[in-house]
């Protein structure tokens, strides 16, 4: 293979993050850090039972505590206008904040205390006395499987992945010579971005609201809030300039945001509400606890005959949450007979949320572990097994892949990790006290593109300001957009600035589902093209030959505009402004997907390799090496892409080895809410890693040739770890996380 792919060393020297300086100086202002006059502080009071009714709420002591401005609950809420338009008897979609004394889960916000300082609000919140008529709550999935239902989404979206599905014959695995038939458990996981969810709500007027808010979509939050409060959409402004991570937790409006807006309405001052770390486990969604049953049958040569996959996930009593757990089983491998079944179990828990690599990460854990189990039954190399079932087109949509470099991924990764050191027999490789194992697993996620717009403001000094409403939760959106614009225009990256996270900026999707570069990047290309055409038009005033210039041939070189069709015809950029006495040139651009999704199936792919060492006596697992090879099309910003990928691997290691939100099913209360009890990987858990990109262009998705990246770097990591642990120890752990107690 010619060296087109990118390895660590190729990427470390690439362009650095454009917002790096402001971040390392501590000068980036995250939501809770925006300064407003007359700011007040809101602290939530939450339920301490899992199901029941509030019979009394004594707020007197809280109201009388020093500094307290108001205590707001269902007893005195200003109300959310949208609720009146909904059926009063049925709670649907979002939890209706302070709308009734009913409790649906433990930790539900039931009041907010607003005070002049954080300390006073926090103390007063502890003085609110709640009396309940308590009912039995139900939060355990296995105990309540009889309550499993087909989601409503299966009806509204019959072609989706929650509908019962059959290709060929059901349960065809039973006919096969080699079978795997197992259950896998993905426990609930909390996103836990380092920045707690925060909001500052300000009513500028009776019908005008400004929110500084942690969100993955400023415009989507604005629209949702405008609907809830029945405000003209243009009267809700949302700012989310810096978002300290989210991983899916900020893809929607949550109760605490409604609370802050209600509180601000009540006190007529800006209210800042910051969630406590513990509240981050149940107030802003979580990857739902999911039980999966996977059965695979294969013939002796490794060809899979049938695959059956069923998934049972938790959801709340008031809202349906579904995700694409089963997608990979339908499209990843060339299998003639596939049947899938998706169920949800409504319980006394808050509503889950998509968490990085959402359902696919959960589904891949079961599927890719089952594939590994099958490989041992067949006595076949797990990579060979996957290649034997490689799908040369999408077997689900029955369409060609837009691009698929999985084979290259397997090949590059196997060589990098030293796959030949892997012993085919488990528990057969030991150095001293440590058992050594290698594992592999595949990840995939749809490559999406939506519609977006951007605005460019170009100045005579050659500086360019680009704006889009898109959020940046960490991947480096401003950096990749700057890289795209710089490449398109020929402009030095230092001349470009990119502003985001503002609902008044041009239209953008939420930052989620790995579609930012494809969607917003396309709008940047369109905007830059428009800018070049506009400049050419102005150049034509000086030199008529510019009339025929086409965007792709136009470049900005130094202070001049160049047409590669006619190298001799250069114009000074400054002159294009001075000729019309222009101070700046403002250009917009729109981009939307075309008909390509009717012709091709779009997916990104990843293959993850893990070398795990497991201590023979204590069961401690050390990840010694991680290699991931990624097919995400052309890499737009290599340095940040590499970091984003490593971050996904770290998330996957956490998922595999330590992360678990545990509920006490007697009360439905979270018992691993704090960072001391809910373990995420720390520095000592993580080795140096090799991130490799195939870096082959996808010809169809967007002008950059890119596909999505953010999800595929976690999808498949947990099974790769589990498979490596099995290879090391011969112990198959099917219920995550793989903590030491499960390996002794």
């Amino acid at each position, binding site marked *: 293979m010619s060296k087109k792919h990118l390895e660590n060393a190729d990427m470390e020297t690439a362009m650095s*993050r454009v917002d790096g300086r402001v971040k390392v100086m*501590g000068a980036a202002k995250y939501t809770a850090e925006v300064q407003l006059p007359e700011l007040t502080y809101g602290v939530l009071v939450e339920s301490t039972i899992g199901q029941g009714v509030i019979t009394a709420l004594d707020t007197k002591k809280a109201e*009388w505590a020093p500094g307290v401005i108001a205590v707001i609950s269902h007893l005195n809420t200003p109300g959310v206008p949208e609720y009146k338009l909904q059926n009063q008897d049925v709670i649907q979609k979002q939890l209706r904040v302070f709308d009734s004394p009913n409790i649906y889960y433990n930790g539900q916000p039931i009041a907010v205390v607003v005070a002049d300082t*954080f300390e006073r609000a926090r103390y007063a919140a*502890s003085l609110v006395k709640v009396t309940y008529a308590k009912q039995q709550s139900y939060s355990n999935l296995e105990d309540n499987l009889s309550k499993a239902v087909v989601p409503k989404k299966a009806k509204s979206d019959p072609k989706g992945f929650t509908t019962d599905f059959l290709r060929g014959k059901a349960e065809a695995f039973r006919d096969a010579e080699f079978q795997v038939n197992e259950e896998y458990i993905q426990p609930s996981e909390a996103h836990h971005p380092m920045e*707690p969810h925060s909001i500052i709500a300000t009513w500028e007027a009776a019908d005008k609201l400004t929110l500084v808010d942690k969100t993955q979509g400023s415009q989507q939050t604005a629209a949702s809030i405008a609907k809830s409060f029945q405000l003209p959409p243009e009267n809700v402004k949302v700012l989310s300039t810096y978002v300290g991570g989210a991983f899916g937790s900020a893809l929607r409006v949550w109760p605490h945001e409604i609370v802050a807006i209600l509180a601000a309405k009540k006190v007529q001052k800006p209210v800042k509400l910051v969630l406590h770390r513990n509240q981050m486990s149940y107030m802003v969604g979580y990857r739902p606890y999911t039980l999966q049953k996977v059965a695979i049958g294969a013939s002796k040569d490794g060809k899979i005959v049938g695959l059956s996959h069923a998934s049972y996930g938790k959801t709340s009593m008031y809202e349906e949450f579904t995700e694409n757990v089963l997608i990979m089983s339908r499209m990843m491998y060339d299998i003639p007979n596939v049947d899938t079944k998706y169920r949800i179990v409504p319980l006394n828990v808050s509503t889950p949320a998509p968490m990085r690599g959402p359902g696919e990460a959960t589904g891949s854990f079961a599927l890719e572990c089952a594939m590994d189990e099958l490989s041992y039954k067949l006595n076949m190399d797990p990579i060979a097994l996957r290649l034997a079932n490689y799908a040369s087109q999408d077997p689900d949509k029955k369409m060609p892949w837009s691009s698929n470099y999985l084979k290259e991924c397997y090949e590059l990764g196997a060589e990098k990790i030293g796959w030949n050191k892997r012993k085919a027999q488990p528990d057969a490789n030991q150095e001293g006290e440590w058992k050594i194992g290698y594992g592999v697993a595949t990840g995939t996620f749809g490559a999406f593109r939506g519609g977006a717009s951007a605005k460019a403001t170009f100045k005579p000094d050659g500086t360019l300001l680009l704006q889009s409403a898109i959020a940046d939760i960490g991947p480096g959106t401003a950096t990749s957009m700057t890289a795209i614009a710089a490449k398109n225009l020929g402009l030095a990256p230092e001349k470009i600035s990119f502003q985001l996270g503002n609902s008044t900026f041009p239209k953008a999707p939420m930052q989620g589902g790995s579609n930012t570069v494809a969607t917003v990047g396309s709008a940047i290309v369109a905007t830059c093209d428009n800018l070049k055409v506009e400049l050419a038009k102005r150049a034509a005033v000086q030199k008529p030959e510019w009339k025929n210039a086409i965007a792709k041939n136009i470049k900005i070189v130094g202070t001049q505009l160049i047409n590669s069709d006619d190298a001799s015809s250069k114009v000074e950029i400054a002159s294009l402004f001075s000729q019309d006495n222009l101070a700046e040139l403002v250009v917009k651009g729109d981009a939307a997907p075309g008909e390509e999704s009717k012709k091709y199936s779009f997916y990104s792919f990843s293959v993850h390799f893990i070398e795990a060492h497991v201590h023979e006596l204590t069961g401690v697992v050390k990840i010694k090496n991680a290699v991931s090879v990624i097919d995400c099309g052309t890499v737009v910003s290599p340095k940040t892409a590499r970091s984003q990928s490593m971050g996904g691997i770290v998330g996957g290691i956490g998922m595999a080895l330590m992360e678990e939100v545990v509920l006490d099913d007697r009360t439905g209360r979270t018992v691993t809410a704090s*960072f001391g009890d809910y373990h995420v990987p720390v520095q*000592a858990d993580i080795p140096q890693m090799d991130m490799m990109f195939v870096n082959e262009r996808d010809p169809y998705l967007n002008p950059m040739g890119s596909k999505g990246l953010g999800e595929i770097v976690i999808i498949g990591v947990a099974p790769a770890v589990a498979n490596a642990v099995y290879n090391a120890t011969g112990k198959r752990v099917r219920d995550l996380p793989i903590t030491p107690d499960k390996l002794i």
Partner: protein
Amino acid sequence: MIENNTREKEEKELSGNSRRDFLKKSSVITAIALTPVAAVKASDLKLDEKLSDAIEQMPLSIEINGQQHNLKVEPRTTLLDLLRERLKLTGTKKGCDQGQCGACTVHIDGVRALSCLQLAVMNDGAKITTIEGLSDGDKLHPMQEAFIKHDGFQCGYCTPGQIMSAVACIHEGHANSETEIREFMSGNICRCGAYANIVNAIKEVKEGGAI
């Protein structure tokens, strides 16, 4: 299970339900030579909040990033909340507020510590350095430069704490190998997973001998 979320102690402390009772029984009143009568009068005149301001606060003299501050603070105010909410030095981050993430790491008298578990008043007379005080004006500290070069962050929220911790890690002599760096930087959680890059940044600064 106990079905209310107030503490037994507070039940005792606040058994009355009038504002006067609150003031009488408040520890605030016992703290100063103010008779309950005077306090109750203050309450009737709705001066209680001003009153509590006066008596619940303590003087604090603290040097932050070379600048002396003479303040009055409630004893319960943490150093972290003082920095962020009062002094608007928001570079120091609140990640967990309970000593479990490292985002609030500052240097207290040259030693790295978690500002969320420090009461501000405990640091009377102390010298604090926060991320805002690390660079020399516009000139970044070598560790800040190295974090940019090695991309030791994504969302940036844990970054000030990582950098303050990293500088101290070298000063302490705990950056002599990758393994040692990893162990002694394990008190700083990065959910975006920039760990490997952070190690590379620290290694480079350590090997460069700039600090």
